[in-house]
């Protein structure tokens, strides 16, 4: 029997103005990153509700990453500063509940940082893969 290699499912929320464009640039430059990374476009990282993060875990995501403009460069001037506080709080709480820290991350990726985007996704996927499947936050009913 062939054992299928474990590939973690990763949901990446990317802001429209910097990180989504950074991901496009990674594509333009043909920079590889795992296919299990799936990007959801949001207008600003501050649009990401903690509920979305938890929902992704509930439905079986193994890692969730938020990408936004670098602090100070937000298209909406201050959105990512709120993201930074909200996610700092959420991640600290998840850690407090015993959820592995490496499953969540916030990274600032500008529209010019295609290479950083790809490298971040590779690194994140690797760290999450090392943890194995997300068992602590998933909802078993949602697994096929």
């Amino acid at each position, binding site marked *: 029997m062939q054992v299928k290699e474990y590939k973690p499912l990763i949901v990446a929320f990317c802001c429209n103005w910097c990180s989504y464009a950074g991901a496009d640039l990674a594509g333009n430059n043909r920079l590889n990153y795992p*296919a299990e990374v799936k990007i959801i476009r949001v207008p600003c990282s501050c649009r990401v509700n903690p*509920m979305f993060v938890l929902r992704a875990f509930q439905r079986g995501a193994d890692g969730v990453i938020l990408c936004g403009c670098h602090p100070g460069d937000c298209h909406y001037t201050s959105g990512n500063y*709120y993201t930074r506080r909200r996610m700092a709080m959420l991640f600290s709480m998840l850690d407090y509940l015993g959820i592995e820290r490496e499953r969540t991350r916030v990274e600032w990726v500008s529209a010019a940082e295609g290479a950083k985007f790809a490298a971040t996704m590779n690194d994140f996927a690797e760290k999450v893969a090392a943890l194995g499947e997300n068992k602590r936050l998933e909802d078993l009913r949602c697994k096929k």
Partner: protein
Amino acid sequence: MQRIGVFVCWCGSNIAGTVDVVAVAEALKSEPGVVFSANYQYMCSQAGQDLIKDAIKEHNLTGIVVCSCSPRMHEATFRKTAAAAGLNPYMVEIANIREQCSWVHKDMPVGTEKAIILGKAAVAKVNLNTPLVPGESPVTKRALVIGGGIAGIQTALDIADAGFEVDIVEKQPTIGGKMAQLDKTFPTLDCAACILTPKMVDVGQHEKIRIFSYSEVEAVKGFVGNFDVTIKKKARYVKEELCTGCGDCVSKCPMKKVPNEFNLGMDNRKAIYIPFAQAVPKVATIDADYCNMLKNGKCGVCAKFCQAGAIDYTQKDELIEEKYGAIVVATGYNPISMDKFDEFAYNQSKDVITSLEFERLTNAAGPTAGKLLRPSDGKHPEKIVFVQCVGSRCDACNEKGKEYCSKICCMYTAKHAMLTRDKYPDTDVTVFYIDVRTPGKNFDEFYRRAVEEFGVHYIKGMVGKVSPEGDKLIVQASDIIANKQIKIDADLVVLAAAIEPDKSARPLATMLTASMDTNDFFTEAHPKLRPVESPTAGVFLSGACQGPKDIPETVSQAGAAASKVIGLLAKDKLTGNPCVAHSNEMMCNGCSSCERVCPYGAITYEDKEFRMPDRTTLVRRIAVVNPAVCQGCGCCTVACPSGAMDLKGFANNQIIAEVDAICK
């Protein structure tokens, strides 16, 4: 239920090379809501777009998903295509299967599988899409310019010449600003008054321009195209419409000991005054702090002598409400206070002066009628030392000065030094500099002329200490090229003080919800591409309120701001971005969380009556989003605990549907 069409693009081999487009189209066919699915070589081509249009009509599609390149590339294209076929353009979603799939994965099965999932996410989102229509708001065709210096004057003239009404609010009794106080202007040395005052007259006489002098902006409400502004016209105790500016009242006023701010306190004026001869409006103003009639009712001389009957001691501050489509900030700058720079003895000796004071000392209309005389004893100074960078280019932790370069000091110091040597060849003029920064047309040539033709001594070094001794000022400084410490017994020391934004800028920025940097300069919407606009729509920046600027630069920026205003006022209506936040009033608590995180001040509150099931009415505070101001970041949606606030086009349930589709 939606009727969704899926269109998978090959992008030649760009997508089809790593993604099995036929399989993707086939797989998405069975997704809920999908009634049509097709693939084509180039969806963005005319033929591809026709394919989409035909399918919309033929299959009565209510939404479409295009699996293609990045939405940053062709979302607008496909939205137009949909609109041409009668479909609401916001019923289009793009699955990015090129930049984020075929280009980053090499393996066909992997790419195909991911493309299908991205397609499913887009289908899941479209299922929850609703048609969106951009809001429209009318534009009030009048502009407000705050500040009547050269920046405000130029902006106002340019806007008015284009045929729009402009109001200028100036806190001083006259427009003119700092430029009116200057003597000559670099690098051409034409006299400031000769080039400024004709413009001031133009403003005063322009039928499209109103001047609210001695006035301040009190409150700003509204948004781009529709600002409601309250202007406080301070009581000047003179009826503007009657005063002829003859000056009889001024000459008769017995109160002579009022420091004259126009000459920076270097001489005195009367309690009733006209700041300078070419003032616009040329109307007298009574200084309530000094007028005996206003203070204790004992005088009334000016009223007695005014033949026009313009004096009115009972005048009160007046509030004027006006509507504007655009607001231009032109609040300008001031030199910083020299109080903390003890080493230069500014507060100890009258003969240590700032450069702006030097301007007045050399100005024919100044306190010395243009003769360069020492403020302490009225003697002709023989040795003059200029010190540059006083309070500029300081460390961030330095509480005395500013971190930035004030930009104009090198040039005006060269000008002062040159003019002094020109007019008084017997004087010995030394300039201490750290660097001489003269980028600009004819600027470096100007500085070189000061050195080479006029014999100004430029010494690279800094003054460490100025000590008054007898009637001399002992200037101890370094000459770091000669590696020497030198002492000069000077008669006059002129400090090139750093400049800072006017103190009124910060409260004004709060009123306008316009952003500022830590130095209180207004920030521009984009430092390179939108340098004369504030991030707050409808607010524009002119002159030194945005950063240190000389006159040529100020005037060009003023013109640029005016052209942006004209571009806005020329429109009858503004169409907004329809992807804006909106609050469900049944669920809103009115808790103000959303308002606090909104960077645009787009959220306000109103008390709304609700009919309750038991036929009573309940008045509840609810949030209301102004769609013309909201830019659609969605920050408020997360701050809202009840989920009453949601973002059109990126709604909670839409994003969650995408998450679910990806994680299935």
